């Protein structure tokens, strides 16, 4: 029972929203999907494998039988599921430092959100809304998303080089190999254990 598997951390948060505010959040997500620059910061930070926001309206919690009691909720609920790299503190520090605009526009519609800057009250808000993960699986536990992207670049470069090298005379090989090295030189970090969580 752990939030952590290898280098990945499974964070789950829940926060209540007044139903009329949900429409505004949906609009913001719609804009984000179609206006790429909003997502650039997330891509540049490069420490999330997969993340999702899920709005569950108050009547939409699945009810599968008549015997299951009917819920009578006032709030819609915003769920956030993240698969990220790094420690909990590091993750939230980074978000607060550089992505506060996006974060504010996602969570300001939730009750009692203190803003994502400064970071300490923001961390308290997340702690309050965080639900622990009971089971977490990753297919590549020793690789961060940086490692994964680097690996794909190396794979592509190797494929190109191997094709290029077919039938190449030895005299040209050395040069071609050097160029291959320059291509992959930034992407050869070892994979392995994560630093301990803090």
């Amino acid at each position, binding site marked *: 029972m752990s939030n952590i598997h290898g*280098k990945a951390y499974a964070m789950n948060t829940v926060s209540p929203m007044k139903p009329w505010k949900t429409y505004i959040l949906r609009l913001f997500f719609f804009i984000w999907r179609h206006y790429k620059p909003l997502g650039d*910061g997330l891509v*540049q930070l*490069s*420490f999330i494998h997969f993340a999702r926001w899920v709005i569950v309206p108050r009547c939409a919690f699945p009810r599968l039988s008549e015997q299951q009691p009917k819920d009578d909720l006032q709030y819609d609920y915003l769920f956030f599921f993240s698969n990220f*790299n*790094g*420690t909990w*503190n*590091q993750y939230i*520090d*980074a978000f*607060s*430092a*550089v992505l506060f605009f996006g974060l504010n526009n996602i969570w300001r519609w939730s009750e009692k959100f203190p803003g994502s*800057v*400064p*970071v*300490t009250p923001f961390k308290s808000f997340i702690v309050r809304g965080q639900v622990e993960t009971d089971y977490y699986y990753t297919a590549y536990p020793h690789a*961060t998303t*940086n*490692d994964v992207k*680097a690996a794909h670049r190396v794979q592509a470069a190797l494929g190109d080089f191997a094709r290029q090298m077919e039938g190449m005379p030895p005299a040209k090989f050395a*040069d071609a190999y*050097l*160029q291959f*090295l*320059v291509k992959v*030189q*930034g*992407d*050869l*970090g*070892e*994979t*392995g*254990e994560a*630093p*301990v969580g*803090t």
Partner: protein
Amino acid sequence: MSKLDITDIQGFALRGYNFPFARFLFLKISDKQKGRECIGRLVKYITTGERWDQGKPKTTVNIAFTYKGLVALGLPEPSLLSFPVEFVQGMKARGAILSDTGKNSPHHWDAVWEHEVHAWLGVFAQSQPDLEYQCSELLTLLQESGGATKIDSQDAGALQINGQITTKEHFGYTDGFGNPEFMGVEKDSQPGQGKLTADGKWTPLATGELLLEYADEAGELPVAPLPHLLASNGTFMVYRKLHQNVATFRKYLKEKGALYPGGTEKLASKFIGRWRDGTPVELSPSEPSPAIVGDKSRNVNFTFGNDLDGARCPVGAHVRRTNPRDAFGFNGKLINRRRISRRGMPYGPYTPEDQPGTDDEEHGMIFMALNASLFRQFEFVQQQWIEYGNDARQGNDKDILIGNHGGSGKVMIQGTTDPNNPPFLCGALPNFVELRGGDYFFVPSITALRMIAANSVDPR
């Protein structure tokens, strides 16, 4: 921001003194009441941040306490428990976070760290006789007060080469560049020391990255103990004795240097990000440049934004690992809360360059760094940037110079297709540096020292 009262802040917190001789005395408080009286008598010796308008003193004295030291001095419990968790635990207990394992684990530390070290008394001096005289005076005071005893001491001193005092360290590099600049802290301002603004200029970091009870880079106050007066103008110090395996380093550099087309000195510059004379590789990748080194407006003034591939200064170079500047994008915003102010000093005699050196002799670096938050600053850099490489997109690869490699692990020196600057892989990395002990200390203000001495620290 409010003007700093430099007479209330210990001088050691504000700047390095650049005195060539030092001794660090590790003390045990023998008795609460007598201990406090002893502190009361020591206060007048403590060097503050006051300007030396009448010339430099012969010696300086500063004091700092571990958590156990504050307990031994009888601070009230609610105040003690309001200190940050990592300080309360002490550095030894934080070994898993810091990768102080294997050769760096406490099993290999100096005997002094088996004792409960309560206080650090740092004495810097202009000459050896001055140092001896000052220490003798202090020890006499300790003895007379009956409040504290010396467990052990550690000498340190600038390396002397051919009779000249230098700023070199044992691997042959010139040290002492690139300490951060903080708002309100007067010192020689150099471009490149602070943080980057959106238009590419340098500006000082928030005072609260160094001193407690001031706003930090996140726009809030760092975690600080109560009451406010106890914390205000204080800071935290990390002290680590880093033994240097001079023979191993020289042998490794020689072997790899023979294979590296650019030559041994160039390879050495790639390890650190500076040539041995201190020239930043980023500004002068092909050769050292005395002109740049000697120019304060240039010798720390560089960024990595035009060298993201690491072809000039490798991504894993020590100065780039420990201060990535703009390498992570976002105008350096991810870096600004991870800066530390260093006061390190070598210990042990210098081994001339033409000798292979030894690993066994007592020589190395006394690493001391100051920051408002040990957890967010020093511990973060140690855990995430030195012993791990993901932020730099280098996977698990560690800092080449001080990483706890254990004989395996590697660093890639990036290059170009230029035959003198090719990509070059350094593998089977040994531990060039080994930890021989240390701890976390609280460096109180003069007001706080007087409060502790007078037993007038309120819980709230």
